[in-house]
């Protein structure tokens, strides 16, 4: 299996794509579309495909149109296509809204008891009634139909159901079998013989990465699109090792996290822009008191409540500058699940090594999308040693060392007093106002950034994909990496993905753009935040492909937009 998203180490030929199948399943919110999408992803995963699932749903619990788009490919993929091979419709809206996306020889399987369409209808209502099954099982019925239409063997369905369905397995299977029986095979999705990798969401990847980084506590107040991290980690909390707390507000979240940091326990929090606002005062405290914390910020379209269940890349500027005063921060913006895993682990460790706040900036597309996750392509994650106090000299919490990093000790530590302080303070943590000491301590804190930047040279802070010799470059960040890589392959472009946003990897970016004649910055926002960050560092990017309607780019759409810029 090839992976077009593997960064270029040496020049490597990228083959054309072959097996690439898109399935759209849609219905009302509350119909279990999400679950169905996950089962379909499971089916194709079982057939040996790489998976990407895009979920679109409104901010409501039931009713309204919601759909999952499952794309399966023999190569690693991280974005959806406009055109689809299978349309599975649980209501009329799904047919009406998406029939324009059908490829020529596409299959439609629909619930004939509520919708009209070309393709193969199943009288789902009747089946459910006959089987005495609840309404939510309609999706099992459609999935049965889909398997038949797509030539997926019944045993595989049975197997995947076993894994994914905890409640009323038998009845679900029965209903699925009725669906299976009700339609005709139209094509056969070929089974691939490749190594199977798990399919996980970006949120799960972040959670796993945090665990890998040594997480001890997770504190969060629910907020789309990162509530999934809270739910995921809460589900794991039971078997020990981590404490998961959901307190009264985001203010409490960040302050609790800093309390945990004081005790030496690695802690992370998650939120979205609105909740992050409430954390900014605590962020600044983390900067001053040198209390490490990882904040996962999930982007969705604002301002304010905005479009809470859609996607955006609008908080780059905000996370770079949030909080009063000047202090170093680490910011990484992963683009797929492997990066989400890797950088969450690294962020937690670097936060502690440098005693700074770290931000993992994700977008809804990544956070809530599901992706094949290949652990083998994750770089090794070193276990960073904490800069612990060696018990030699008397302890000073803010010892002004050469690197600015002070040795750590944690209460209770016999005979030792550990003072952290939000005021400007001396080395022992006592409030001061003296001009000289203030300047020294401020320089100490800022100095850490230089050393962090130096250390980051060993990391892939900027990644390059596509045609390494191409002089035309797509510049991107976050989940747009997926679509950019595919478009780059189609148009023979190079892709430069900025992963670390602070400290800004200027040298690496310059290096990667050395031979670039034409750079197009692709972002999910209206003002071009990455490109404006680039110009702050003297790199002017004139061309921008921006999208800010809350929906991610499909390959097709991005290709079209990029081609226009290239004319």
């Amino acid at each position, binding site marked *: 299996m090839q992976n077009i998203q593997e960064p270029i180490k040496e020049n490597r030929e990228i083959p054309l794509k072959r097996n690439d199948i898109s399935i759209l399943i849609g219905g009302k919110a509350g119909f279990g579309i999400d679950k169905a999408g996950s089962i379909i992803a499971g089916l194709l995963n079982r057939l040996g495909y790489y998976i990407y699932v895009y979920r679109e749903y409104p901010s409501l619990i039931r009713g309204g149109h919601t759909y999952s788009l499952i794309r399966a490919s023999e190569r690693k993929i991280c974005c959806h296509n406009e055109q689809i091979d299978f349309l599975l419709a649980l209501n009329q809206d799904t047919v009406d809204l998406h029939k324009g996306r059908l490829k020529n020889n596409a299959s439609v399987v629909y619930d004939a008891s509520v919708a009209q369409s070309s393709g193969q209808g199943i009288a789902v209502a009747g089946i459910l009634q006959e089987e005495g099954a609840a309404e939510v099982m309609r999706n099992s019925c459609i999935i049965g139909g889909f398997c038949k239409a797509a030539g997926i063997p019944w045993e595989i369905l049975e197997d995947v159901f076993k894994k994914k369905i905890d409640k009323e397995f038998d009845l679900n299977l029965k209903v699925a079998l009725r669906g299976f029986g009700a339609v005709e095979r139209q094509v056969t999705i070929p089974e691939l013989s490749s190594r199977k990798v798990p399919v996980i969401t970006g949120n799960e990847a972040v959670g796993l990465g945090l665990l890998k980084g040594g997480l001890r506590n997770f504190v969060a107040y629910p907020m789309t699109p990162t509530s999934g991290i809270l739910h995921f980690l809460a589900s794991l909390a039971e078997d020990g090792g981590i404490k998961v707390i959901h307190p009264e507000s985001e203010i409490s979240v960040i302050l609790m996290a800093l309390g945990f940091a004081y005790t030496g326990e690695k802690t992370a929090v998650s939120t979205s822009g609105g909740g992050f606002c409430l954390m900014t005062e605590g962020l600044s405290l983390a900067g001053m008191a040198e209390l490490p914390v990882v904040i996962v910020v999930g982007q969705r379209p604002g301002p304010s409540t905005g479009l809470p269940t859609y996607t955006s890349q609008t908080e780059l500027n905000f996370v770079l500058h949030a909080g009063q005063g000047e202090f170093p921060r680490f910011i990484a913006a992963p683009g797929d699940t492997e990066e989400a895993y890797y950088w969450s682990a690294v962020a937690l460790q670097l936060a502690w090594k440098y005693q700074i706040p770290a931000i993992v900036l994700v977008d809804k597309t990544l956070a809530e999308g599901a992706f094949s996750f290949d652990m083998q392509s994750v770089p090794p994650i070193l276990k960073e040693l904490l800069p612990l106090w060696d018990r030699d000299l008397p302890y000073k919490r803010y010892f002004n060392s050469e690197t600015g990093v002070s040795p750590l000790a944690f209460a209770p530590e016999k005979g030792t007093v550990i003072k952290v302080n939000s005021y400007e303070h001396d080395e*022992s943590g006592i409030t001061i106002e003296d001009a000289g000491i203030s300047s020294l301590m401020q320089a100490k804190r800022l100095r850490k950034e230089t050393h962090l930047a130096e250390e980051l040279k060993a990391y892939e802070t900027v990644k390059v994909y596509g045609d390494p010799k191409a002089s035309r470059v797509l510049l991107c960040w976050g989940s747009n990496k997926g679509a950019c890589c595919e478009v780059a392959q189609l148009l023979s472009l190079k892709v430069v993905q900025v992963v670390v946003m602070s400290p800004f990897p200027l040298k690496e970016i310059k290096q990667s753009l050395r031979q670039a004649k034409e750079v197009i910055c692709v972002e999910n926002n209206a003002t071009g935040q990455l490109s404006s960050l680039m110009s702050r560092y003297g790199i002017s990017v004139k061309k921008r492909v921006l999208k800010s309607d809350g929906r991610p780019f499909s390959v097709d759409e991005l290709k079209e937009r990029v081609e226009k810029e290239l004319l």
Partner: protein
Amino acid sequence: MSEINLNTQAVNTWCPGCGNFAILSAIKMVLKSLVDDGLPLENIVLVSGIGCHAKIADYINVNSFYSLHGRVVPPAEAIKIARPGMKIIGFAGDGDAYGEGMEHLIFAAKRNIDITMIIHNNRVYGLTTGQYTPTSPLGYKGRSTPQGTRERPLNPLDVMLASGATFLARGTSHGLDLLKNIFKEAVLHKGFSLVDVLQVCVTYYNMYEYYDKWVYELSGHDPADRSLAEAKIREWDYDRDARIALGVFYKKAAPCFEDNFLMPQGAKKQVDERISEFLSQAV
């Protein structure tokens, strides 16, 4: 009493005559006596807000977390959850705890988390020059209310009782012995404890005479009796002239939030094991 030196090199900058000195003296004595009783000094963490009161963190040579205005409670909670064996004492102003950070107080009481909150209730924002707070009386003239406030004060103890606090007491800055006793009892109480100290701000709201006239010490009071506690708490509403009871109003044994996180150490799975377990289910 223990001969340990609890002083720091920080210069004390409270106004002469400030009621904070009494709190400082009392808590130092309590800390020493806790050490005498066998508690290692390093097992104590002080948390403070921002305001005159909060400088206490600079003045005691003990572990401390000098937090933000209004944010004493959340770090205190976290430290307790992480280190259930330690004693966490929060020092907050009335502006701090009953105003900006009131919500945290309510939830800490609800959770009955075992921290002690000492409120330096001078009924003004001291450090920002004397504006009214949630416990200033009706008509109080501060720089943000030069015509006098037009709202009644909160009775913070009443709100705390309704929120589930399991230890509630009151002291004044004229009454060192009582303060000492209350503080010690509060720190030793297993569960959320709050001591409202009528700490006099000599500069902006000098109530020494008033309090001297109206306060009395509870005696023969049964702190296990919630209705009695309520009656005593409501005797004075922080507004109209009335007798002001001092002492422990209420005390109750109840499960503590942090106990939920006491995990048998052996139960922990290795991280890598847990990760691959999850991933294998996701194939």
